[in-house]
């Protein structure tokens, strides 16, 4: 498998505190890779390390086959980066900022710029400081896409977007992925959008990588049984191997049982109890995310 990003034991300290702990990550080329985690989990720091905006305290990595320690400028030529809540030169117009940014790159797709300006309905003559945060993010995406990058690194790109703009934003990204095989590495708090667009996921918490893999495997590895029992179930029902977590909904006898193994046995055990309803479903990304974060919290 060809990799767009590969890191090994990548660590970062700020002062005396370690904010990233030995991250070993593999992002396949052509994938849409979502980096998820609570605030302060080190997502933004990891992205900055990949394009040389910060230096790792230990470990290393390759980005598009280039060493992140020694060839950061070449990486930035080939990788578009959109920071969280980007700040641009507010006194410039949209058109001036585009022209200014184009001056740094060998390639600059003017046709794409015009098409995206139109799609986002961004006024080229407006001063950048007059734009809303959502419009600035849209402009940031155009600036990141115009050099025809092989890798698109997006840090919370849809902050300040309404749902329609968010959908449009992701559709433009997906067009690029489909048309040119661009790899997308992004962080986002909008898990529904991530679920729709990402095919690989990594979960970070407290600067540690707690899970990474294809989205399908993540979904397939976890099932949820929803049961409404007629009377209180015996405690040993929830102590079977494979039950990772149990949530009781309200004060009634409705339960959400999260299962990582032995689904059939656990299902049969539940079915043997008198019940009003029993169903098995695959949890959505938000539930998986909460489960992983919850498990790590419990182990902390």
């Amino acid at each position: 498998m060809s990799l767009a990003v590969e890191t090994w034991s990548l660590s970062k300290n700020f002062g005396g505190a370690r904010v990233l702990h030995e991250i070993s990550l593999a992002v396949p080329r052509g994938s849409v890779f979502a980096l998820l985690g609570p605030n302060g989990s080190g997502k933004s720091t990891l992205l900055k390390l990949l394009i040389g905006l910060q230096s790792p305290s230990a470990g290393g990595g390759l980005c598009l086959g280039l060493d992140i320690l020694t060839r950061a400028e070449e990486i930035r030529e080939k990788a578009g980066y959109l920071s969280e809540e980007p700040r641009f030169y507010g006194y410039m117009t949209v058109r001036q900022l585009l022209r200014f940014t184009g001056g740094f790159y060998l390639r600059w797709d003017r046709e794409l710029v015009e098409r995206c300006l139109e799609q986002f309905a961004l006024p080229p003559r407006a001063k950048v400081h007059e734009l809303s945060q959502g419009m600035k993010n849209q402009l940031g995406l155009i600036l990141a896409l115009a050099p025809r990058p092989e890798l698109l690194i997006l840090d919370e790109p849809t902050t300040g977007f309404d749902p329609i703009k968010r959908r449009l934003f992701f559709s433009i990204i997906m067009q690029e992925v489909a048309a040119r095989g661009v790899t997308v590495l992004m962080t986002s708090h909008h898990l529904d959008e991530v679920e729709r667009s990402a095919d690989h996921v990594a979960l970070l918490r407290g600067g540690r990588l707690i899970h990474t893999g294809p989205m399908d495997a993540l979904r397939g590895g976890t099932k949820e049984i929803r049961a409404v029992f007629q009377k209180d179930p015996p405690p040993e029902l929830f102590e079977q191997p494979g039950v990772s977590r149990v949530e009781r909904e309200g004060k009634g006898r409705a339960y959400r049982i999260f299962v990582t193994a032995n689904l059939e046995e656990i299902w049969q055990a539940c079915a043997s109890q008198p019940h009003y309803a029993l169903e098995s479903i695959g949890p959505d990304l938000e539930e998986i995310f909460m489960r992983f974060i919850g498990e790590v919290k419990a182990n902390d």
Partner: protein
Amino acid sequence: MINLALFGKELRENRVKFYLCFLALAVLAVLLPLIYGPTRDFLSKIIFLDESIRRGIDFIGASYNNYAWSQWTAKNLPQLATLAAIVLGMGVIAGEISYGTALFLASKPITRREIYTTKAAAGLFLLALCVLGSTLLFVLVSAWKGFALDYGAFILSAVITYAGAVLIYLGTAFFSGLFSEPVKAGVAAALFWLAASVPGYFPNAAPFSLFYQMKAVSYWVYGQNPIVPLGLSLVIAGLLYEAGVWLWSRREL
């Protein structure tokens, strides 16, 4: 090493500072030759009790060359050039940090050294326009008035002043990498250069003062070849530049 897009942006961002600095210098560059006659006549009528002042006035009145050097190269030009160097240098890095644009700029395919070099080149270009452009204006007004001025030596003296201003600019740019606010960087640099001016107040130590050298005293008054102070300025400028690059390259964004 120089990115033209960034160079253009720097010229644009610093244009108001440049206009103000150049305007102040240009007004003096026009005014000083125009008031030469009345000033000489006025000073010749005053009786100075202090002998050293008397000697100074006699020196100024002796020739237009002396007047031009004493009022321009030894006084107004280094003072305003110092101010211009601090004003133009204080925002080199701190400006990007305080406006929050440093991350955007550093994420472009350009090294930190190229960013710093381009910004410094733009600032030094504007500083050169201020110092040398206004000196040229002084020369033109003097020629128009028909005053006898040693033009070559006068312009070379301004180059010596500019060399000193380059050091002040690069020193201020270094401070700009230490602070996150241009004003704080400017104040810190001003205090530093104020401290550096202290040797100039003692006759024996004066040649070690940057500000003494900026007046081109050794060259203009004593006729010494300026190659040594200019060469030394170049070396110190190189060290200050490298220190500024080092500081900016280590900055985590």
